[in-house]
Each structure stands twice: as structure tokens, then as C-alpha cells.
């Protein structure tokens, strides 16, 4: 007799799973204990085993697609048996979840992140106005299926308004409007200025779970910080030599060297040089490095585009020009947009170290302290070296502590062996 196979609960926090791969193919027989499929949950890749002997009659949720907990994913039965029509009808609306493009597979078409899951749209209980609002705002109500604030989880207007971020403006009392479950921090969409240089990739279930947890803990952007002390002796020597050789054509600053080192390090670490945006993970193909310029009132961050393609001289010229025009209030809008990273240097104020706040949707920011003559141990001897402390703030949704550390290591290497800046 034909039977539905449903998405099982494979972890405590799992709400839906992705079929990583069907091990048994349609029409194949299986025995009790055989692995039928591999399922990716928010935590890990798990195996779905058969509890009985039978034949896999029909796959309802294909490889790479998602299904809600308890939603039918396949039909099993006996060899040659017809699949009942109502079971086919129960198939999710072909859950059009795009299979993730393998990393490094070139620029993939920007896949629309569909919130589709295994619930058919007609099965979603929602008030008429909730449906209307959702449709006007391009929201797929299946993301809220069964989780609305109305009776038996009916989706009502306020649930949709929360999704489109309207509630605050209408001033509904917070204690009465409190969401029933945690709401993940909304991710900003990729800015138009970046779209053509950016490859969108769907985050894995694990990454999504981490992003949600971190966002709940320290939202909307969960920051973490890694710090390093950099011996600037060689960098300062190189700077001096370069400025002598350039005979006043342009004056290269320490910040320019930091921009160049950051840009090269970012390109080496795509796992950090990517933004958590509404559509997925946005990988940046060039380092557009913003430099925070303090103004009398506030600050502004002009962006040096494609800093990875620019020499120290080019960077110095660009940053000098931008900084002058920033202070004069003469920057163009597109000169303060499209950054993929920011450098904030407070060294000139005598600050030795600080932690900066990420400028979304950038994934990270580097806080640079003053270079201070410091006693350090070299080859067993205490010597005095010019030491600069830098602190990297990263978006924990887009990257991890190890990623941040690796980026910082790359950066440090380039300043301690500054000939690499000329490469």
C-alpha cells in the first residue's frame, strides 16, 4: 500500500530540511535500515533510513529542495503500485529551491532566494488582508505558514507588516505586538552599485542557523573582534624610501599602506570578503575600501574602488583627493557607496586600540590604533619596535572567528614584509 514519507525531525531546532541527495532512486527497492536519502538540517548532514522494506515509488521533493518538518517528501509502496493522485497533489509546489552553486563556479545567475518550502500556497491559513499585503509586497506567505499570530497559527496583517518592517512606524505598543518567536535580523539587499561585481550564493542550512542565532544574540549585525599587533618597522622604512624616491609627487601615508594591505588580504580570503544580504551571501570580486574621515560633526567614508588593482601611489592620490573633498563636503554620492570593507584609523588621536562598528552591508571593518614604540622580544632580546595594534570587526553571519583571524594574518604579513605591497 502506498504511503507518504515525510520530512523527519533530525535535530531539536530543525524546522525544515533540505534533501542533499536521494540515495535510493525512484522505482528502486529498499530494505529496512537502508539509507534512503541524505538530509541537510540546520546543524548537519543526516541520513534518513528506511523503517521497512519497500519501493520508492515517487520522489516529491528532489535533490537540493527544502521541505517543512512533516511535509511529504516521497511516496513508498510495493513494486509496480500506482501512486495515488491525492499523494501527488500533496507534493510541494515543486519547491523551486535552487541547488547551491558550488563555490568558485564562476558568477552564478543571481538566484532569487525563494522562501518556498514544502507547504502549498493554498494550504497557508492567512487572513484576506494578510494575503493582499503579502502579494503587494512580493512576500511568499509560506515562510510564515502555521506561525501566524491568529487562531491556530493563522497569518494576520501584523505578521506581514512585521516582515515588511512597517509596524514600528505605526507605533503599536511593543508589549502587545511582541512576536511569538524570534525574528531574525533582516539582511540588507545587495546595493545596486555592487550587483554587477557580486556573485550571490545560497548559504547552507548551518550558516543560516548560525546567522539567525548570532543575530538574535547581538543584532542586527552580530559582531566579533580579532586583534593583532603589527611590527611596523619595515613598513615605515619602505614608506620613507618611497616618499624620498617619489620626490614629492605624492606622499604615501601609513593609511595608504593599510588600504593596500587590506585589499590584497581581502582578495585572498573570499570567506571573509562576502556580505550577508537578503538574497544570500554576496561575494565581492574587488576590494572597495572605505576610509573613515572624521568631520567636525560626524564622519564620512569615501570609498577607494578596486583598491586591489591600484598601486600605493594610485591609492595615495585617490585617498588624498577624497579626504580633501570629504572635509570640503564635496563628495559625490557614488564615492561614498559600494564599499566592501572599511579602514578606520584613530592613531593620530593617540588611540592605541579600539573596536569599530561594521558599516552594513560590508562584512568587516578594521580599527587602526597609533604606532607606538614598544619593548618587544626578538630572538631572545628585548628591543624597542614601532608596534601598531589593529582590531578587525567581522559580521558573524557572513564569516567565522577563524576566517577573521586568517584575514588578519594575511594583512599582518603584508605590513611586516611590506615588499609584498609592491607586488
Amino acid at each position: 500500500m502506498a504511503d507518504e514519507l515525510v520530512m523527519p525531525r533530525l535535530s531539536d531546532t530543525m524546522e525544515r530540511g533540505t534533501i542533499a541527495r536521494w540515495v535510493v532512486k525512484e522505482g528502486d527497492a529498499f530494505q529496512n535500515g537502508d539509507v534512503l536519502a541524505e538530509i541537510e538540517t540546520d546543524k548537519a548532514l543526516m541520513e534518513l533510513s528506511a523503517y521497512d522494506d519497500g519501493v520508492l515509488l515517487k520522489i516529491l521533493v528532489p535533490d537540493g529542495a527544502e521541505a517543512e518538518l512533516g511535509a511529504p517528501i516521497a511516496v513508498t509502496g510495493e513494486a509496480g503500485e500506482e501512486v495515488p493522485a491525492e499523494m501527488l497533489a500533496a507534493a510541494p509546489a515543486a519547491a523551486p529551491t535552487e541547488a547551491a552553486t558550488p563555490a568558485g563556479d564562476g558568477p552564478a545567475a543571481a538566484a532569487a532566494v525563494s522562501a518556498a518550502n514544502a507547504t502549498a500556497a493554498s494550504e497557508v491559513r492567512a487572513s484576506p488582508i494578510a494575503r493582499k499585503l503579502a502579494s503587494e509586497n512580493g512576500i511568499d506567505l509560506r515562510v510564515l505558514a502555521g506561525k501566524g499570530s491568529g487562531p491556530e497559527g493563522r497569518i494576520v496583517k501584523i505578521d506581514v507588516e512585521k516582515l515588511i518592517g512597517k509596524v514600528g512606524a505605526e507605533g503599536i505598543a511593543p508589549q502587545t505586538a511582541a512576536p511569538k518567536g524570534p525574528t531574525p535580523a533582516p539582511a540588507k539587499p545587495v546595493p545596486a552599485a555592487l550587483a554587477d561585481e557580486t556573485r550571490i550564493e545560497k548559504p547552507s542550512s548551518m550558516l543560516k542557523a548560525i546567522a539567525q542565532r548570532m543575530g538574535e544574540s547581538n543584532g542586527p549585525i552580530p559582531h566579533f573582534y580579532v586583534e593583532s599587533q603589527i611590527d611596523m618597522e619595515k613598513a615605515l622604512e619602505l614608506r620613507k624610501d618611497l616618499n624620498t624616491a617619489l620626490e614629492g609627487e605624492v606622499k604615501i601615508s601609513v593609511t595608504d599602506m593599510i588600504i593596500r594591505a587590506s585589499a590584497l588580504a581581502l582578495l585572498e580570503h573570499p570567506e571573509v570578503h562576502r556580505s550577508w544580504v537578503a538574497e544570500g551571501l554576496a561575494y565581492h570580486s574587488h576590494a572597495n575600501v572605505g576610509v573613515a574621515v572624521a568631520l567636525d560633526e560626524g564622519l564620512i567614508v569615501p570609498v577607494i574602488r578596486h583598491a586591489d588593482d591600484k598601486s600605493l601611489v594610485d591609492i595615495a592620490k585617490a585617498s588624498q583627493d577624497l579626504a580633501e573633498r570629504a572635509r570640503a563636503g564635496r563628495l559625490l554620492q557614488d564615492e561614498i557607496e559600494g564599499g566592501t570593507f572599511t579602514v578606520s584609523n584613530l592613531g593620530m588621536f593617540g588611540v592605541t586600540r579600539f573596536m569599530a562598528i561594521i558599516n552594513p552591508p560590508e562584512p568587516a571593518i578594521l580599527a587602526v590604533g597609533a604606532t607606538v614604540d614598544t619593548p618587544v622580544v626578538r630572538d631572545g632580546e628585548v628591543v624597542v619596535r614601532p608596534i601598531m595594534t589593529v582590531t578587525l570587526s567581522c559580521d558573524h553571519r557572513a564569516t567565522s572567528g577563524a576566517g577573521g583571524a586568517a584575514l588578519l594574518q594575511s594583512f599582518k604579513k603584508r605590513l611586516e614584509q611590506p615588499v609584498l605591497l609592491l607586488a
Partner: protein
Amino acid sequence: MTYREALRRALDEELARDPNVFLMGEEIGRFEGSYKVTAGLWAKYGGKRVRETPISEEGFVGAGVGAAMIGLRPVVEIMTINFIVPAMDMVVNHAAKVRSMFGGKVGVPMVIRTPGGAGAQLTAQHSQSLEAWFAHVPGLKVVAPSNPWDAYGMLKTAIRDDDPVLFVENLVLYNLTGEVPEEGTDITVPFGLANVVREGTDLTIIAHSYTVRRALNIADRFLQDGISVEVIDLRSLRPLDIDTCIASVKKTTRALVAEEGWATFGIGAEIAARLHRACFDELDAPVERVGGAEAPMPYAKNLELAALAQEDKIGAAARRLLADCGLVDA
């Protein structure tokens, strides 16, 4: 000025304005009416214009129909709406139908004034709100003002109307005070226009007569929850101003209709049906209805309070509706 005084002034002014206007009813002359609405009018206009009748509702409503058919403008008082039952044949089969059955050549420009309402332990036969029965009947107009201004202006409109009007008052409203138009302005209030008496954004409460006062108090209470309630006073049940209700519900997306009578087949049933049709895509929850308990009114005070569509009962229904929409805790 009280609601009672506003009615009296309208009667007085219409008696003075049009010699065809006359009053009929039980004990409305020397005794000045059971609720003193006609006080002083018998003394001022005499027994011919303020006519006392036997205790025979069918008889004097029938006399009113006849007088109206020959061109007079009778204003008939029925002591309470409960006593209209013996006169149903005159109201429904004659007053409502004459114009249509005589090819439009003869009408019945009669007003029946009568209070409904409950709350004074008058028990099952004297505590009813029967206006829905009459709002059901083509050929009748049914109005139920909730404040002195509308009572004054709508009674004048009723007397000047060429067709029969059931003018529903409420025992609890008689002592309500409020503004009325200045003397000498001859302001009337037209039928078929509901009044948005409180603007709001989260929920529309639709009511008529005394229930409007309850709705306003509920709206005040919800302010503490940060909930903004719009209150619509229907004023006129037939003709019914559904457009004002629709516009409001399209804005608030939630509606509750409250009435003192029974909800089953009631005013709320009619309005809910029309709102569901007109606002289907704008609703966040089904339109809710609240009325009195579906039982003959008990005598015992505690049971009477439990049976009435009190503020607490309407407020609780509103809260459930808002909770179903995620706006308040249940």
C-alpha cells in the same frame, strides 16, 4: 439639554410649524407620557393635537395609519417597543405597504416613537430591543439616534417624511445630555447617514442607539493598550449607510457590530454579511457580532446584568478579535 428635552423641543416646533402634525398615545396628555417626553404639550396645544388613547395599540396605530392616509401627520407614541407587538398588523401589513399597493397615490406619513432598551429589572416582556424586526421590512424607515442632537434633528426629519418611520428611542438615553442646534435654526438630520463618532485605525465598532455610548467607553479603555478604535453610530438602520462602514473597515481591516437586541438574525448579521462581501480582501478577521443573551430577559438583577450586551461583554469580544489579529494579549 437632555435627550428627552430634545425630543420634546422637536415635537413642539413641528406642532407649531405644521397644523397637520398631531400626537397620539397612552397617557401623553395630562400625565405627560410615561417618560415625560410630551410634558407641557397637551397644555399648550390642547386635546385635539395631543390626543390620549385607550390601551389598544392596534386601534390607535390603525387610527394613525388612517389619519396619515387622508393627509395628517400623526406622531404616535408607543409606551415601549414591547407594546408594538399587538399593532404589528397595522405597522407591517398596512403602514409599510399602502404606498406600494395603491400605486403610489396614497402614503402613510406617520411616525411611531417608542423606546427600547433594558436594565431596570422590567423582565422578559418589557426589556426588548425589537428594531431589527422592522428594519427587515421594505416600506418602513427605522432610525435610532444615540444623542440629543440627532434625536432632535432626526425626529423633525421623521415628521416631515412622507412615509412611515419607526423612531426608536432608549430608556437609558432619556437623561443623556448633549448639544442641540440653536433655537430658530431649524436644523434637521437626514436619514441614511451614519456618523463616525470616534476615528481610529485598528478596529471599527459599529453600533446604534445606547450601544454607541458603550462603544465609545470601550474605545477609551483600549487607548491604554495602544489600540485605536473607530466608532460608527449608524443612526439610521433602514435606510442603512453601509458605505460609511465599508470605508472604515477598509481602513481598520477589523470590525465588530454591537447591539442591545439579540445578535441572531440581527442588525449585526446584516452588516456583517454586507461587510464580508464588500471588504473580503481587506479583512484581517471575520466580522464579529455581539448582542444580548439569547434568552428571555431574566428578572434577577445579577442575571439581567449577565444577559445584557454590557460594556464588559462587548469589550471582551473586541479583545478576542484583536488578540486573534495579534494586536493584544488574549
